[in-house]
């Protein structure tokens, strides 16, 4: 691909994506993604932020159509370089995965097989997608290992995952992800607790991969700090919808949706140092209540039950996406402007 790039460098365009999971033999319909649209340009980094159940991971899995059991895409399009991945035949889609769109998980041991040498695991996509083999393949893998910052790549080729450190394994997975020169990399970060140093190494790696190859990046995370650190644009998801979309700076400086505002204020430990010294035990602002049950969504705005700004209209009518500025929009009847 690559050669026939679409206008304005748009790489990925998701339009009105809808995805539901049919559980209990179809009796329970979990509405995971409810009409999501966004555009990603080449070489840019998009952060998709949300709590568990917000649909952020389901969005990333829908793009690659790696759907969990019982999940179906009910509507919308995922246009990658102008081709709709939703309607693409499975065998054509398989040629896309790993080659044009790669995925990377934060925990390398989820992706690596402990029984295979790391070199062979990095080689696999090259063998599958580009038919490489023999000495050329080995040379290319060693080059990739060197490119992601693994010292002495020749000797590392033959090692097994248990012989390497966690940070090194992250880099192995990174080498496999970029092996076929993908235009898009999707990085999914789990919500589980991680050492800050390990997380920082992972974010460094993503940044390096992007700088080296110019690929576009989608980072799935629950942490606004990750967006501040890495992203150009951010989508804040709530109950399978985009609550707010904005360039990262706008999101932090002029958040329009009450959910985004609340999220920004509840981050612990991010207050001014003076504030902490004055009163170490000042209470944190909270968002009362729970995220809604995706199998029983309220009729109006899904955030209304927890929203300080909500009125009768919010509880009965779904707010449309309101454009506030270039690239900045919020799905709210009363956005801050």
């Amino acid at each position, binding site marked *: 691909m690559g050669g026939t790039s679409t206008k304005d460098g748009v790489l990925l365009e998701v339009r009105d994506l809808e995805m539901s999971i049919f559980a209990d033999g179809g009796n329970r319909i979990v509405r995971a993604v409810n009409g999501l649209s966004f555009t990603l340009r080449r070489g840019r980094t998009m952060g998709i932020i949300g*709590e*568990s159940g917000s649909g952020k991971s389901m969005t990333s899995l829908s793009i690659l159509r790696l759907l969990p059991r019982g999940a179906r895409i009910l509507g919308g399009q995922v246009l990658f370089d102008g081709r709709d991945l939703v309607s693409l035949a499975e065998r054509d889609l398989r040629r896309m995965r790993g080659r044009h769109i790669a995925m990377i998980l934060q925990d390398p041991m989820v992706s690596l097989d402990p029984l295979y040498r790391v070199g062979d695991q990095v080689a696999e996509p090259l063998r599958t997608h580009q038919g490489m083999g023999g000495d050329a393949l080995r040379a290319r893998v060693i080059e990739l290992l060197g490119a992601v910052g693994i010292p002495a790549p020749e000797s590392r080729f033959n090692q097994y995952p248990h012989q390497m*450190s*966690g*940070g090194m394994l992250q880099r192995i997975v990174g080498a496999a992800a970029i092996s076929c020169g993908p235009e898009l990399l999707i990085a999914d970060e789990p*919500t*589980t*607790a*991680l*050492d*800050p*140093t*390990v*997380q*920082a190494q992972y974010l*460094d790696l993503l940044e390096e991969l992007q700088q080296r190859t110019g690929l576009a990046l989608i980072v799935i995370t*629950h*942490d*606004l*700090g*990750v967006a*501040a*650190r890495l992203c150009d644009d951010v989508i804040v998801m709530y109950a399978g919808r985009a609550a707010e979309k904005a360039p*990262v*700076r706008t999101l*932090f400086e002029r958040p329009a949706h009450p959910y985004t505002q*609340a*999220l920004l204020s*509840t*981050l*612990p*430990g*991010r*207050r001014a*140092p003076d504030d*902490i*010294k004055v009163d*170490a*035990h000042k*209470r*944190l*602002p*909270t*968002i*009362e209540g*729970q*995220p809604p049950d995706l199998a029983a969504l309220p009729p109006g705005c899904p955030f209304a039950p927890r929203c300080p700004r909500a009125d009768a209209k919010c509880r009965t009518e779904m707010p449309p996406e309101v454009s506030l500025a270039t690239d900045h929009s919020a799905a709210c009847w009363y956005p801050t402007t």
Partner: protein
Amino acid sequence: MSTITPGPLLAVEKLQKHYAQSRSMFLRTQAGVVKAVDGVSFQVPVGATLGLVGESGCGKSTTARLLLRLEDPTGGRIQFDGKDVHGAVGPALRDYRTNVQAVFQDPYSSLNPRMRVAGIIGEPLSANRAISAGELRDAVAEVMQTVGLNPQSAQRFPHEFSGGQRQRIAIARSLILRPRLLVLDEPVSALDVSIRAQILNLLMDLQEQFGLSYLLISHDLDVIAEMCNEIAVMYLGQIAEIGPAAEIVDNPRHPYTQALFSARLPAHPDGVSARIRLTGDIPSPLNPPSGCRFRTRCPQVMPVCAERVPPVTHLPNGHLASCHLLNESVVLGV
């Protein structure tokens, strides 16, 4: 609850936990010693929170297990309210177990799914004291109210509650014996951001209301900075630096603390600062580096670091750090 206690509620002195490692699965020959906790000292005053931070494998959870008497130390001692914890037997031990309770990370695995909430919360009380069913019911209802749960849901099962509510159940269970110290092991890491603040606020309210002391273990530095009066930074079984929270967060003196806190995520896109990158992983506690344990990853390592164990340097404001850089005669080569 607020008895007058001279000195700290909890005093840990040169605590040590070494595990003997056998050479093979079958031959019980001793091959080495894993120094999981190696000479750790700190104190927790009444009503205060001490945070324990460090990367995985630094020994913070082993320290907690020792405090909870789930394991016996191989050296040093723990004193609670002036009494030796590991010498306690019979009523004294029962007393200690009543006074020190724990809340763990994952409220999905720490609560028995087949017990009703009333049973989960009431179990420590019914196991420790002979009380009537009515008294137990009242005590459970009261503590549920205290942590913000509706007492009418006492007959429900854990799966009917959300993650945040489950953590409230775990906190209620830990409180029902009216303890004085809670060991909080990653109490909010499994929760969503919007729920995290609710639980942290609850913990702060309870501390104020009951004069509780907390030992808070977390690798979330934001939570630590928010909650703690004092912070101890652990590395390979030892405390690298300890002091008042504001000192550790704003004025860290040990290169490891500086590197650790520089890995914090920014609060704003403009706040992205230069990170001190550490190379490699924590060395094995089976064979820790000579001299300073951090020297193999330290960006400011000097020849002396391999030769001598850095002494503890006393800095202003009760701030202690163990690093040769803080020792002028060494730095200037005197």
